[in-house]
C-alpha cells in the first residue's frame, strides 16, 4: 500500500471529565492505521475504550470527552486541527459511523426518506430526484423494499432499521466506515445476513472499515487486521490469521477461548477472573497483570510492558517472544 493511510491514529490519548482537574483517561496512547479498503477490527471488553476511540476517529467526540494528546489523521489531515465546519463536511461523505444499537438513531417523527434527503442536502446533493434515486439504489443494495423509504421509523423492525441506517451511512460513498457493534442487538440469523451484506458492499464500493466488537470470532472471519484493546490501550495487533493461530497476549487468548468453535471436543471453559481496572486508579506496570494467570511478580506489576513486533504482529507484554509467523 502506497501513499498515506486512510486513517492514522498516532499516540492518541482521550480523557473524560467536565473540568480540567479531574480527567479520567479512557484511551491511553493508541496507535492504529487503516489503509484504503482495509478492514481493521477492534476487540475488547465493554469499557476498554473502543467506542470512545471510534467516536474520536470520526470527529464526533463531545464533552465531557476530549482528545488530550496525539494526532488523528484522515488522509493525512489532522482532525484535531480542523474547524467544526470542516469536520461537518467530512461526516457521512468521507467518514461515516454506524452506532451501536441503531434502533433509535432515526428521528421518530420524520419519514426515512426525508432523513436521507437532509443528509444528502447537507453535503451538496440538493437535487431531490437525484438524491431519491441514490437512496433507492442503496435500499436495493441492503435488500430493503423501496416502499419503506416512505415509512416512519417505528414502522420498521429492528433489523430493517439497522439496514436502513447502514444504507444511509453508505449513500454518499464514504471512504471510511466505522461500525460499532452493528449486529450485537440483533439475533444470530439477522446478524449473519447483515455481515454478508456488508462484505458484498465492501467489495463493490471499496471503503475502509473499522469494525468494533467484543465478539472476536466474528472479527477473525471478516477482518484483515485486528487490534485488541484493554484498559484504553492496544495490547495486541496482528493480521487476523496470525491472531487465530498464534495469539501473543494472554488477554487475547482469554478472549479467543470465550468463543469455542463448534464441532470440536468439549473443553472446560474458564472465565477470566476479576474485573477491568478502574481507569482512575491504574495499577503500576501492566494494566492486565492483576487478572493475568501468567503474571510475573516483580516485573508485570511494576514495570510497563514493552511492545515487540515482528511481521506486522505487535504485542505489548513482558512475556512475549516474537516467533516465526506461521505460513498462510
Amino acid at each position, binding site marked *: 500500500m502506497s501513499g498515506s493511510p486512510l486513517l492514522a491514529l498516532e499516540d492518541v490519548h482521550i480523557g473524560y471529565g467536565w473540568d480540567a482537574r479531574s480527567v479520567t483517561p479512557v484511551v491511553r496512547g493508541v496507535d492504529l492505521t487503516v489503509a484504503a479498503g482495509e478492514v481493521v477490527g477492534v476487540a475488547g471488553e465493554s469499557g476498554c475504550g473502543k467506542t470512545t476511540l471510534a467516536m474520536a476517529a470520526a470527529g*464526533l467526540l463531545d464533552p465531557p470527552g476530549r482528545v488530550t494528546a496525539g494526532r488523528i489523521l484522515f488522509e493525512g489531515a489532522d482532525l484535531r486541527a480542523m474547524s467544526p465546519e470542516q469536520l*461537518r*463536511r467530512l*461526516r457521512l461523505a468521507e467518514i461515516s459511523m454506524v*452506532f451501536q444499537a441503531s434502533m*433509535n*438513531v432515526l428521528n421518530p417523527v420524520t419519514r426515512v426518506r426525508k432523513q436521507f434527503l437532509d443528509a444528502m442536502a*447537507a453535503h451538496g446533493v440538493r437535487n431531490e430526484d437525484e438524491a431519491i434515486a441514490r437512496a433507492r439504489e442503496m435500499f436495493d443494495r441492503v435488500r430493503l423494499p423501496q416502499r419503506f423509504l416512505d415509512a416512519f421509523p417505528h*414502522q420498521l423492525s429492528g433489523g430493517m432499521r439497522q439496514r436502513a441506517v447502514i444504507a444511509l451511512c453508505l449513500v454518499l460513498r464514504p471512504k471510511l466506515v466505522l461500525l460499532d457493534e452493528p449486529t450485537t442487538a440483533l439475533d444470530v440469523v439477522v446478524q449473519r445476513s447483515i455481515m454478508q451484506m456488508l462484505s458484498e458492499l465492501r467489495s463493490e464500493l471499496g471503503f475502509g472499515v473499522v469494525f468494533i466488537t467484543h465478539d472476536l470470532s466474528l472479527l477473525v472471519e471478516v477482518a484483515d487486521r485486528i487490534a485488541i484493546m484493554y484498559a484504553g490501550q492496544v495490547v495486541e495487533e496482528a493480521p487476523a490469521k496470525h491472531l487465530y493461530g498464534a495469539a501473543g497476549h494472554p488477554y487475547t487468548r482469554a478472549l479467543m477461548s470465550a468463543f469455542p468453535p463448534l464441532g470440536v471436543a468439549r473443553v472446560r471453559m474458564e472465565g477470566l477472573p476479576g474485573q477491568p481496572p478502574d481507569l482512575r486508579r491504574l495499577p503500576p506496570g501492566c494494566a492486565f497483570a492483576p487478572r493475568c494467570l501468567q503474571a510475573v511478580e516483580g516485573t508485570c506489576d511494576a514495570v510497563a510492558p514493552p511492545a515487540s513486533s515482528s511481521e506486522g504482529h505487535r504485542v505489548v507484554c513482558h512475556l512475549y517472544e516474537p516467533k516465526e509467523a506461521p505460513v498462510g
Partner: protein
Amino acid sequence: MRYIIRRVLLLLLTGWAALTINFALPRLMPGSPIQVMAAKYTGRLTPSALAAIAQALGLKNKQNVFVQYWTYLGHTLTGNFGYSLSEYPTKVSTLLAQNLPWTLGLVGFATVVAFVLGTFIGAVAAWRRGSLFDSIVVPTGMMLAAMPSFWISTMAIYFLSYKLGWFPLFGGSSSGSLTSVAGLGSILSHAALPAMVLAVISLGGFMLVMRNTTVSVMSDDYVKFARAKGLRNFTVASRYAARNATLPVVTNFALALGTVVAGTIFVEYVFSYPGIANLLYIAVTSEDYPLMQAIFLVIVLAVLLANFVADMLYVVLDPRIRVGGRA
C-alpha cells in the same frame, strides 16, 4: 384513532363531572340553597323572582333530586342559566356574552405570546446548555414560575400605570365606542399591560418545560446520529431536537392551562378588566350562585376545548400515534 376516542371520552367525562359538581355542591352544604339565596337577597328581590331563579337552577323544593338533576342538565345544555341575583333582572347569559370576548382576547394573545416565546427561549437555553444564557434562563424561569401572579400585577399596575402613567389604570376601554379607531386604540392600550403581565406569568413554565425536555431529547440517540450525519447545527436543533421536544411540551400544555386560568383571574381582578374571571370574583363575593355556576361551566368548557385542540395537535405532530404500528 383509539387515542383520539379515549381523549374525547375523557373530556366529555370531565365536562359531566363539572356539571355534577356544580349541581351537587350547593346541596351538600347545610341548609337548602334556596334558603341561602333568600336570606341574602330578600328585600332586593321579589319572591316570585327568587322562585324563577330557583326554577332555572332546578331547585324547586318539592321535587325529587333526580328530577332536579335532569331539569338542571336540560337547562344548562340549552344555555338557560337563569337570572343573575346581583344584577337582577339581567340574564346570566347576557352577562356572560358581554364579558367573554374581553377575556378571550386577553388570554388568547397572552398565551400565544408566552408559548411561542417560552418555547423558543427554552430551546435555545437547552441547546447552549451550561452557557451564560442558560444559567440566566433557568433561575429566571423558576422565579417566574414561583412568582405570585397577583403580586406582579399589582407591582406592574403601581409602577407602570400609576407612577409612570404609561398605561391606563383600569377597565377595558375608556371610549364609549368599541369599533371606532379611537375605540380600538383605547381597547388596545387598556389591554396592553394586563396582556403583557399575563404573558410574563405564563412564560416561566413554558420556558422551563421546553428547556428540560430539550435537554433530555438532546441526549437521545437520533440527535447524536443527526450530528454524525454532518447536518448543520441549526437543522439538528430544529428538525431533530426541538421537533421531538415539542411533543411532551404539547402534552404539558394542558397542565399549563391551569396556570393561565389562575393568572387570568388575578390579572383581571387587579386591572378591573371586564372579563369573565372578574365576573366570577364579583359573583363569588356577592354570593350570586347562578352567575357563579354558569361562569364556572364556561371556564371548564373553554379549558376542555383547549385540551382537545392540544390533543389533536399532538396527533398531528407525532406520527407514532397517527400512523400506527408495523408496515
